[in-house]
């Protein structure tokens, strides 16, 4: 009830809205703000990654307020802590939208947390900006995916290894949950499509927080001793990475022999490791702190000043939030309102500069265009870019390499549909 009222108030012209608010809120002196929800875990397993994103959002909102806010109003961050607990994500999302009346939510990290809040965003019709690389196979009206889809990270990385390193044998190692499993399914289909044989692909899953990597690393070594050049494609997530890299270093697996390319290891994760023995291992991202552009330099400076720590690193999901937030601000300015449907219509086609010198655009499938970078770990715990795409790559919601997914297309402008089947010409449903 309250939310419909608030929405109606926001929909009408500013004058009428002001009058209505003045009428309903007795304290006329209370300055109206636009609330922005921040839904990141500040405790539990994921706090290690998500706390940083909360800080970035606070910094961005702070900055926007210094520039005069949005639509003449100040922005107000509403921070909640879903505590790495997936059902709690849904509860907290409901709290943000229904009780706090936030105009948009920036949040989630793991795919399972995103899946858990989806029904809430659909039911209450609000907006979520999701900043992390993910497995694709999804496009929702209420969600904007500012992280990489598989074609913006995994596929280019595999191509790089094949061309530049001459890799013929592949270890797909991942943590046992939806993102690695789907990504590896796509990669397996992609590699087999290129003529890689079954016996040249080894797939290995480990539980979250796996800490004893002795057997797996020695298996990888053995798999790599077949005479063919071998590489590891790692979708190992979170805490398990540090012991994995430590074991690689100890068992003497060097990047020049068996390179490891990771999709979930960024500057933040390397902060906990001595990178000396890991020099040359790779990561594929759409942003690296080491990329030398004026925009990035300014961002790093600002971030280190905001956190009062000159050693704080930046990473890819942070940049995704920067892009997402700026897109949302532009869309709200364009629509002249924070009304969900109007902002969703206004945001497609919005272009904002990213931190690596390009201009990212919001696409009709609610993904964005991004450059792809391959970086090698250096001794300072940063990445040296060794390869990048010349142009920005448009994010593809539905993989072209999976049966049942390759015929699907997402278009929220002309087709108003997240899974339009080009074969049957109907919205919804998997391919026949």
């Amino acid at each position, binding site marked *: 009830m309250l939310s419909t009222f608030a929405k109606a108030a926001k929909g009408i012209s500013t004058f009428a809205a002001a009058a209505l608010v003045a009428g309903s809120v007795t304290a006329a002196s209370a300055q109206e703000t636009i609330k922005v929800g921040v839904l990141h875990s500040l405790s539990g397993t994921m706090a290690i990654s998500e706390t940083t994103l909360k800080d970035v959002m606070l910094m961005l909102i702070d900055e926007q307020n210094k520039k005069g806010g949005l639509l003449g109003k100040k922005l107000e961050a509403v921070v909640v802590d879903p505590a790495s607990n997936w059902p709690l994500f849904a509860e907290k999302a409901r709290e943000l939208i229904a009780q706090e009346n936030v105009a948009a939510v920036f949040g989630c990290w793991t795919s399972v947390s995103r899946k858990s809040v989806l029904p809430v965003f659909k039911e209450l019709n609000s907006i979520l900006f999701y900043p992390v690389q993910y497995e694709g196979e999804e496009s929702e009206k209420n969600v904007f995916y500012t992280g990489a889809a598989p074609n913006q990270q995994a596929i280019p990385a595999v191509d790089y290894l094949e061309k530049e390193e001459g890799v013929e044998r592949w270890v797909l190692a991942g943590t046992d949950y939806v993102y690695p499993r789907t990504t590896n399914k796509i990669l397996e289909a992609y590699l087999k499509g290129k003529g890689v044989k079954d016996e040249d692909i080894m797939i290995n899953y480990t539980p979250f927080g796996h*800490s*004893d990597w*002795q057997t797996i690393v*020695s298996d990888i070594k053995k798999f790599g001793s077949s005479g063919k050049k071998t590489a590891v494609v790692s979708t190992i997530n979170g*805490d398990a990475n540090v*012991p994995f890299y430590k074991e690689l270093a*100890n068992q003497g697996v060097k990047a020049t022999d068996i390179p490891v390319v990771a999709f979930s290891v960024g500057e933040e994760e390397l902060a906990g*490791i*001595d990178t000396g023995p890991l020099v040359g291992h790779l990561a594929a991202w759409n942003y690296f702190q080491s990329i030398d552009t004026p925009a990035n330099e300014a961002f790093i400076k600002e971030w280190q000043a905001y956190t009062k720590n000159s050693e704080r690193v930046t990473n890819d999901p942070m940049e995704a939030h920067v892009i997402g937030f700026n897109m949302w601000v532009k869309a709200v300015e364009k629509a002249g309102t924070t009304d969900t449907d109007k902002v969703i219509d206004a945001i497609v086609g919005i272009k904002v500069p990213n931190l690596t010198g390009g201009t990212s655009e919001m696409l009709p499938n609610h993904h964005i265009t991004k450059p792809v970078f391959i970086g090698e770990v250096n*001794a300072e715990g940063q990445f040296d870019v060794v390869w990048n795409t010349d142009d920005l790559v448009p994010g593809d919601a539905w993989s072209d390499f999976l049966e049942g997914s390759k015929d699907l297309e997402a278009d929220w402008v002309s087709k108003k549909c997240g899974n339009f089947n080009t074969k049957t010409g109907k919205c919804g449903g998997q391919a026949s």
Partner: protein
Amino acid sequence: MSLLSFRAFHHLTRALGRSVRFCALAGLVVLALAPSVHAEPVDDALAAFAADGFDDTQKGIDILVSSGHDSAEAILAALSAGKLMVRNDDKALFIEGKAGAFTDARTGASASVDAAKLKVVRLNNRLRRSVQAALGAVTLQAPSPARRIAAARAVQRSRDPAALPAVDAALARETDNGARAALQTARAAIIVAAKDAPEAERIAAVELIAAEANPDAAALLRSVQADAPQALRTAAEEGIAGIERSLAFWNAMQNVTYGISLGSVLLLAAIGLAITFGVMGVINMAHGEMVMIGAYTTYVVQDLIRDHAPQLFGSSLFFAIPLAFLVSGAVGVAIERGVIRFLYGRPLETLLATWGISLILQQAVRTIFGPSNREVGTPDWMSGAFQLGGLSLTYNRVAIVIFAMLVFAALLLVLKKTTLGLQVRAVTQNRRMASSMGIRTDFVDAMTFGLGSGVAGIAGVALSQIDNVSPNLGQGYIIDSFMVVVFGGVGNLWGTLVGALTLGVANKFLEPYAGAVLGKIILLVAIILFIQKRPRGLFALKGRAVEA
């Protein structure tokens, strides 16, 4: 020589074939090279390095190797170590020495330059391989045998046919037996892959390599092409079969060592719990956080040592051990005095209260140190691996096994041979009787809990070497710890030892077949079945203490 020039040509065509941008770069290099046509090749190489494109650098390496210039080794070594710098404005190259001193790469004379203007010549993995191979070729005649052996190994890994003349030359002059063997293996590695070598020579090379029973040798033999002559292929296949037979034995041994190593980690994590849960009967869900506090103590100690006494870094862990014991022990005593003593005999409430304490401790650490991982360095003497027969053992794992056994022995001594140990056993066996005998049971309770927590802190020092130092460190070990103590038999230290090692070895034998996820599930099911049969674990306590 002809091979080399062919390679250079190949790289040039590849560079040209790439994109317009690379063409432009290649053009620039040619321009830069043009005025120095009459200069020495080493200048051309330096100009190529200064261009700092991956293809240019490759060309520079090739030129440098073929030049045979005196400074080639120094330049390559600097390139390999990331110490070759190019000055932004005039593209002059410098080598960074110790403590910010620079030498001119061309002349070797010391130079004073503004470090802010210098940029490292970048490498990627392809170049890194090529530099190491090149470095191997130029250091083959180094004065010390150890360096010659290392160089021979580098050549062996690269299997670069261009290095063959250098290897032959070095072999002709070699007097040291070890270096000679290494050179011969390196030479065999090249010959096996060389199509134009005589067949008999290649077969001899295969036999030489097959004698080295390790996975690398098998890899080398597998790389013999399918179109190779029949006799050569047969020899290679026999060699592989022989290597695999000997590897199968070592594999089983390797699994045992991995199992012992995992078991000793479990033992370290569980041994503190064997006191608080096993001896005192407190279901302490905050046990993992004691381990975490120990790991963070290590981090703080290392941080202080780095800032104030960097020369002591190698022994930082020895300072951390007693401190971690004291810090975790003190926290343990505080928890016991503050909360647990009101809850003796009420296991459910204890479980909930300690669970709450564990969350509080995690969040406190997160607030103080931040949510991200902290880097705990590994001292040099604990990094790397060594070979024992066909086993590859890493120093840090060996150190942890030894450390776990020492902690176990020390704890056993404390419980069996000291007054405190006697009092602990007396209080846990019959509290009222012990009290009547004049033992301060309150004090003993606090000390016992402190001892268990302190030992957990010591475990944290060891675990900081192999795991994340993050607020969640403890959570990963709490379930395993309870599993070990329950499986081994509550109240029996020996049970904990045997339980930990059994679980470790079983886990490592299951993992290669069932995978890490399924392996763990199978193990849990096995323990559930075992506990059904023997509810008191492997080594059940007998006597009146059990009923008390």
